[in-house]
């Protein structure tokens, strides 16, 4: 079973380790390696909403933020696309049909 993806509310990065807010409203303080948004600091202390942060991040060129966590080669795809990609491709399915027909 695939674990639930945690999404950054500012940039949409899907590789976070935990939800940005718990059910109590407590912040995870996990700095998004993609855009640098830190729930509990950027919003609660610096008074910048995830939307504002994301807008500025995109306007500044959407640069990968983290110096220590490498950027994935390809941007994390939305959940639907990820699920689709693990299904067998048409080629694989065709090959298995051929085998059966032999």
């Amino acid at each position, binding site marked *: 079973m695939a674990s639930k993806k945690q999404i950054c509310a500012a940039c949409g990065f899907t590789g976070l380790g935990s939800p940005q807010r718990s059910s109590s409203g407590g912040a*995870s303080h996990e700095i998004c390696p993609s855009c*640098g948004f830190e729930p509990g600091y950027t919003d609660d202390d*610096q008074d910048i909403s995830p939307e504002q942060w994301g807008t500025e991040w995109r306007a*500044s060129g959407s640069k990968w933020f983290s110096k220590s966590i*490498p950027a*994935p*080669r390809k941007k994390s795809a939305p959940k639907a696309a990820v699920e689709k990609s693990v299904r067998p491709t048409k080629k694989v399915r065709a090959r298995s049909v051929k085998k059966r027909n032999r």
Partner: protein
Amino acid sequence: MNQSWKSFFCLSALFLAQFSITKAVELKTGPTATLSKEGVVVTWTTDGISGTRLHYGRQPALLNFKEDGGLGITHEVTLEDLEPGPTYHFSLGTAKRWLTSGTLTLSPSGEVVITTEKGDSKTNTSTANPTPAKPKELEKAESQPLPKLTPARPAPIKPPANAPPPQKVPPTSKTWGYIPSLQDHFDRHGRDFQSTSPEDYAAKAWLFLQYAKRNNLPMKWDSADRTLRVWEPRSRAFAAYNANGTTKTFFRPNSDTYWSRQPGRPIKPDELPF
């Protein structure tokens, strides 16, 4: 066979990703301050396009006035309501991160003195006057030693004279929750505690927890995500810890109401799970 190719491609992707890390925006020049008809104009440049933000206030821990500007490489904000005489503390940067901090003073004669601190040693002083200054006065001003650097944040907590002997700090791998994030937390918050390295920052966060336990500092336990939040009202230091005692973050909030807005129930050190 398929599996080995997958592993090979994954490893290659990781290897290539190491070289594709983009550097965050850094301060290139400035800040400098000049006096105009509108007020004190603070300018600086960055090595990449970023937003413009300056927070300032009379107290280093309370930068309650904010000025924002547009996106660009050259940044400029005008502080319209500075009073001549008192020293103002400021932090400037982008909406994402602070790039430097320091102090700014407007003298009754209309001279603006700005001192900045970046990292541990860089100092930049700029003066300006709306009316041309006499060469002699300028010479005198330039011959004066630079004002002592004033950090924009309060000094770290000093242990009292009767404090117990210093504790041996466990290795960073035992004190910090998610090691890959440590560098980013250090880059953002390390200067709040004059930390010299990520390891030093992590050690200070661990020591802060020990200090909090010994001195019964305000603590809140959030059972929703099993997080301990700790507050030191005097130095305005805040930290969040995982249920195993490892650190999530450690910084000095600017907001006056930060602690009161934190969720969780008050907890005593002897009730802690670690």
